[in-house]
């Protein structure tokens, strides 16, 4: 495998699974854009009755063969049934060397690790976590996994870097023509935006629903004109798991303190009262607490945001209903209040990765976003961020929308400085997911570090009582508490690449030699 050093000094391959790739050269170094991929388009005359009896009929109709690329979206999160249903059927047919291209996977999909080991799935393009990440770290995938952000995945499909043969789209509500949305039905999950690119660029598109309604199913997040077949199943997911886990504000005093510091930073820097305020925050304890603190500060100051960017949660819905934001621009719903609000509130808007995050566009709104608040597993002295691997070398997380949302005007990382002895601020991150030039502020319980590239942010905080510290000082505090960690041991074999949102390779993950 031929390797080259990218602009961050990381050695990355020039070819991935036979496709030649370029090294990362800077967050906005790509000014050339891409070629829009154009596949064939059939004639409407062929399409009358799209309803098939079951999934097997759909697999037959799509003529799935060895080596094909099969895709799924992750709006049903840990409640999703469809990935496992389809994969088991493909396995029963003895298919092999399939490529799975999910927008994300969850613990419920852990069983895929066996199919990776057996060779039925050659590798994953998109996102993975937990047991599948572990299998990848141990070198169990035949080919190299490709990790992409949400925007990067849209771009890869749009540019033709990744061609999907068959897309299975779990749809909480659909009609027999294939129009579908995520806001109605027993498995309602909110937006279906992650599946848009699949519906546009895959050769065959199968909508799978447990709630078939008469034509027209409206709103139509997925348009029937892009859909080949519709299949009705008993249930596409477990609603109690579709929204779960991340819906409660943390009670950890440390995490609450971090969220409070982050909200105060936004307020005391004056970002909150600048014209056209907006922010993005996801799920997870710190983010929810941040939204709550931010709401209180905005309420006191009489600030109304132009928009907030979800992952929508009850706390964002409260902001909309209490007049603290004009719009919610929603990429996915994290709880049932988010789903309800998207369905019922005219200014709660469903988005997809094209409008929000795609780099090969005539502008996406990540650049309009004022403040983005994101989590991380490691940050280094150059402000490079790792969200993919743990410090012990295991590949355990996808990118999510990280690199895309980090394109906001001010990107803030919130993370505990020490997690069960593990220091978060280090000399050098294990894997680079996003370059330091995109990261402006690091907020920890021990202090807040501002990227020296953003001196004007520091100037705005003159007189603030927030604990501002150079990032080196945060590193020193963590080291003093925990002591210096040993380094994980890797082989030379690249098991996964981290693709930046413009399609360049920002880092490579190597096979791990596990500690005995």
């Amino acid at each position: 495998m031929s390797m080259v050093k990218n602009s961050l000094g990381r050695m990355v391959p020039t070819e991935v699974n036979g496709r030649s790739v370029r090294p990362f050269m800077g967050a906005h170094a790509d000014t050339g854009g891409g070629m829009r991929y154009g596949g064939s388009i059939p004639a409407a005359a062929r399409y009358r009755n799209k309803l098939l009896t079951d999934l097997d009929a759909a697999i037959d109709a799509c003529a799935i063969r060895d080596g094909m690329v099969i895709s799924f979206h992750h709006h049903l999160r840990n409640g999703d049934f469809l990935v496992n249903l389809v994969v088991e059927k493909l396995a029963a047919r003895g298919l092999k060397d399939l490529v799975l291209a999910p927008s994300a996977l969850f613990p419920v999909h852990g069983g895929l690790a066996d199919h990776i080991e057996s060779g039925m799935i050659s590798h994953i393009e998109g996102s993975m976590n937990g047991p599948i990440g572990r299998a990848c770290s141990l070198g169990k995938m035949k080919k190299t996994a490709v990790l992409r952000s949400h925007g990067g995945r849209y771009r890869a499909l749009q540019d033709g870097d990744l061609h999907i043969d068959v897309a299975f789209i779990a749809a909480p509500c659909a009609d027999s023509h294939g129009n579908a949305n995520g806001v109605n039905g027993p498995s309602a999950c909110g937006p279906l935006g992650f599946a848009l690119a699949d519906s546009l660029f895959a050769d065959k598109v199968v909508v799978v629903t447990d709630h078939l309604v008469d034509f027209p199913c409206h709103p139509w997040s997925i348009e029937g004109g892009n859909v080949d077949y519709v299949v009705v199943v008993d249930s596409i997911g477990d609603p109690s798991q579709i929204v779960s886990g991340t819906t409660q504000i943390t009670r950890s005093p440390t995490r609450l303190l971090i969220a409070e510091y982050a909200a105060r930073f936004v307020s005391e820097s004056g970002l909150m009262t600048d014209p056209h305020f907006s922010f993005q925050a996801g799920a997870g304890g710190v983010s929810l607490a941040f939204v709550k603190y931010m709401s209180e500060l905005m309420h006191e100051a009489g600030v109304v945001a132009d928009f907030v960017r979800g992952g929508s949660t009850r706390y964002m819905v409260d902001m909309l209903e209490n007049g603290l934001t004009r719009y919610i621009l929603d990429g996915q719903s994290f709880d049932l209040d988010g789903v309800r609000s998207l369905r019922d509130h005219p200014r709660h808007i469903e988005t997809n990765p094209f409008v929000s995050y795609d780099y090969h566009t005539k502008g996406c709104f990540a650049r309009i976003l004022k403040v983005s608040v994101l989590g991380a597993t490691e940050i280094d002295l150059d402000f490079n961020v790792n969200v993919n691997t743990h410090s012990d070398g295991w590949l355990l997380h996808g990118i999510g929308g990280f690199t895309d949302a980090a394109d906001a005007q001010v990107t803030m990382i919130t993370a505990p400085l020490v997690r069960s002895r593990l220091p978060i601020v280090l000399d050098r991150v294990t894997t680079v997911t996003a370059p330091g030039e995109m990261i402006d502020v690091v907020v920890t319980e021990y202090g807040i570090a501002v990227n020296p590239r953003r001196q004007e942010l520091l100037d705005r905080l003159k007189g603030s009582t927030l604990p501002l510290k150079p990032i080196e000082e945060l590193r020193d505090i963590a080291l003093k508490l925990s002591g210096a960690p040993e380094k994980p041991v890797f082989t030379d074999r690249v098991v996964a690449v981290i693709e930046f949102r413009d399609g360049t390779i920002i880092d490579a993950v190597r096979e791990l030699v596990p500690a005995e």
Partner: protein
Amino acid sequence: METLTGRAGRDEKSDLLVEIGILDQGGLEIQVNSSVKALYGKAIKAAAETALQELGIRHARVTIHDRGALDWVIRARIEAAARAAGHKTGLKPPAGALRSPADKNRLRRTRLYLPGSNPDLMLNAHLFGADCLILDLEDSVAPPEKYATRILVKHALGALEFGSSERIVRINPLSTPYGVEDLEEIVGAAPDTLLIPKCESAADILAVEELVAALEAKAGLTHPLLFMPLIETARGVLHAYEIATAGKRNIALCFGAEDFTADLGVERTVEGKEHYVARSMIVLAAKAAGIQAIDTVYSDVQDVEGLTASAREAMAQGFDGKGVIHPSQIKPVHEAFCPSPEQIEKAQKIVAALAEAKARGLGVVSLGTKMIDAPVVARAQKILERARAHGILGEEEKI
């Protein structure tokens, strides 16, 4: 041949379980199992080895099950397990930050209780701005845990960051089997203050004082350890003044409502009428003795409004602070104990009127149509002092 075995610690985050078998021969055999083994396996083993060498144990079989404990926790758990196995000596208390001369009158609006057995809750406790941190050996620690907990607290006093918070240890009462051993372990590690529970008479204070003085002399400590008697029985309330004036180390009387209502055999209510008189008596006794009075905890962590009301009432009654059981309670209590802008403005006007009257040689001070007499001025000055202590008024605004 294996002679003695001992266990200590917990299978919890930031902690570890240690099992030691002390042997006659064969050297040290240390097995480490850890959630952070890939990154800290060697460091954990090294910390254990060093601790065993300092203890003078040369032959032992040790198994460690770790969940991200820091070195000082590892040392404390090794020491506790070795002593549980019958080893006679302990580790010297780590040389922590030198104790500054204790300030009897410092702000004590909040004193945060931390279970002395739980290192995870201790690690970041100094970040939340409580005026005092209490490492508890008493009610939050089950009897089988007392032994290892006082050793952990000894190490915490030397190794843990306390920031600007006062370092307090709550011991068990001397009337229990644990109180004396608590003192023997803790005093040499030099906390700032001892919280002494279930005080019922002057004799209770004097007994602790005698033991502490002897242990301080033995450890060569020069700054005397301060006392905070905790009154939580009917008998204690009736003897509050006697307790407050016993010995030379008292800095505050504290009230504990939970035990007090149990002693009375009544329900503890949100309004707290059942202990209103007791709390007043404690304030009176403390103020008469020239020391601070600190109110009980508010036990519903979610109820911020109730907490604020309770803290305001405590301040109105004359208390200087309140106990807190979660860091989220700190800010509301500090705010409640801070004079309001209206109070500050009025106090500033009164003090200014006094200054003006003095300058003009007037014998009578008045503000608008109201006469101002000496107690009013004194109260106004106390409010301004408190505002300054809360950092609301800068020195330049001193009138």
